[in-house]
């Protein structure tokens, strides 16, 4: 009887369930290390400001709030509006990329010969920096009403596609063969059943982390793509700040906002992933 209790001990203490619940809790209090890092950063920054190297955190914060609420008088746009333009491009481009990357990744991960066939094209396209497609895009989309918009979509697409595609192919190919055999012995004899009931569900965490890195690369690309384009996204804003001359604080605010948004997007995808694939040890 006592052995029986040991085997079931997990339930009575509820610790296993508790842990997984806590890990998906959104409002996590930051660790003391994080507080210390923020504090140390502020200290160093203040010291540098005293030496006259940079604007002080106070001035900087003031300018940041100003950009956020009132906006930049030169462009008559708030920081959020500028960010929104870039995010819009990102979400359209990356969304298209993910749709194609996941579906083609599953196909190529599943059909090995198809993968060997496409490998040479993929291997050549993958190392091309996404920004290199800008001129190609302008030629391709010259006839469309908003060529710059489409070029930017294309650049984001190129950046977001490969990380997601790679992750999908890899995760589909590395499905545990024992699990597939388990499904077969339980009666899943058709390939379609194996694909739908074993390979796809087990690929979900891998696809989510592919989406995560794709979104990250796509975000980097849009900033670069906007340096050459005319739509007033955050990249274009940074570039024009530079060209108008001097406004270093605004440039830094814009750059740090890019980092902050990238960080937040990453966290959101992780949280969503934990929601969607609660069964996975993230």
């Amino acid at each position: 009887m006592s052995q029986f209790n040991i085997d079931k001990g997990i339930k009575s203490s509820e610790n296993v369930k508790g842990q997984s619940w806590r890990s998906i809790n959104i409002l996590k209090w930051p660790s003391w290390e994080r507080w210390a890092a923020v504090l140390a950063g502020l200290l160093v920054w203040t010291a540098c400001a005293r030496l006259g190297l940079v604007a002080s955190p106070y001035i900087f914060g003031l300018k940041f709030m100003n950009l956020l609420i009132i906006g930049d008088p030169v462009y008559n746009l708030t920081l959020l509006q500028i960010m929104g333009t870039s995010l819009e491009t990102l979400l359209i481009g990356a969304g298209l990329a993910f749709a194609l990357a996941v579906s083609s990744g599953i196909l190529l991960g599943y059909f090995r010969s198809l993968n060997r066939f496409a490998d040479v094209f993929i291997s050549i396209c993958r190392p091309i920096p996404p920004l290199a497609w800008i001129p190609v895009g302008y030629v391709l989309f010259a006839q469309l009403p908003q060529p710059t918009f489409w070029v930017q979509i294309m650049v984001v697409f190129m950046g977001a596609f490969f990380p997601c595609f790679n992750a999908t192919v890899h995760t589909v190919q590395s499905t545990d063969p024992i699990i597939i055999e388990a499904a077969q012995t339980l009666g899943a004899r058709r390939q379609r059943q194996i694909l739908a009931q074993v390979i796809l569900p087990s690929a979900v965490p891998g696809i989510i982390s592919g989406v995560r890195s794709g979104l990250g690369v796509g975000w980097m690309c849009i900033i670069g793509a906007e340096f050459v384009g005319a739509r007033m996204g955050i990249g274009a804003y940074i570039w024009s700040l530079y060209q108008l001359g001097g406004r270093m604080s605004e440039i830094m605010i814009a750059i740090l906002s890019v980092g902050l948004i990238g960080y937040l997007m990453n966290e959101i995808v992780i949280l969503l992933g934990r929601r969607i694939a609660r069964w996975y040890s993230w």
Partner: protein
Amino acid sequence: MVLMVENVDKEFNGECVLKGITFSLEEGEFACLTGPSGGGKTTLLRLIAGLIAPTSGHICLDGSLSRAKPDIGYVFQEGALFPWLTAAQNVAFGLKLRGISAEETRYLVQEALDMVELTGFDEYYPKELSGGMRMRVALARVLVCKPKLILMDEPFGSLDFRTRNKIQKDMVKLWLRLKPTILIVTHNIDEAVYLSNKIIVLSSRPGQIVEQVSITMDQPRIRTEKSFNLIREHVLSLLGE
């Protein structure tokens, strides 16, 4: 006769792993397959389950030769549960494929989970279960399909001593209740003598049957009894230890 294995040879890349394997299992028999590691025990189970084909020889289940064997339940090492499905969904997997209604599935799954003493763990994911509980789910997952033959590959090998003893005891109880035909691979002689009516002893490469030891002692058995230990000693001597 539920299972008949006749003169089965298996070669991998020209290397003989199993040679001239011949044995049969009667309905309701609880058999153990034991032998040195690398002797081809897992290979033999995979052959019986139809996951691989023999180089020569025949394997008949219920008199039929077909490769697709939906009436065999296979419990893998470590359980091989689907990590994205809860315990109940894991157990329901085979039933869904057989097109059984949701209502009946729910009832059968509950019954199977009760049988392996996991009542109330329906909603737990495999990562939230202990090793012993995972094996119980794996067992429930095949029991629920009412297979003609249950194959188990070192099912309790990774469990700690106490969990292992408890699960062996439950296994015997379950067998006495349902009388399924079971073939279980183990390298633990004590386990083999405790559980089975018949121990099939395999030699090392190429794997050949050294002897089939029948055990007629009543279940459940007591490990410290003299007759228990005599059988143990005999099997150990067959393995040359």
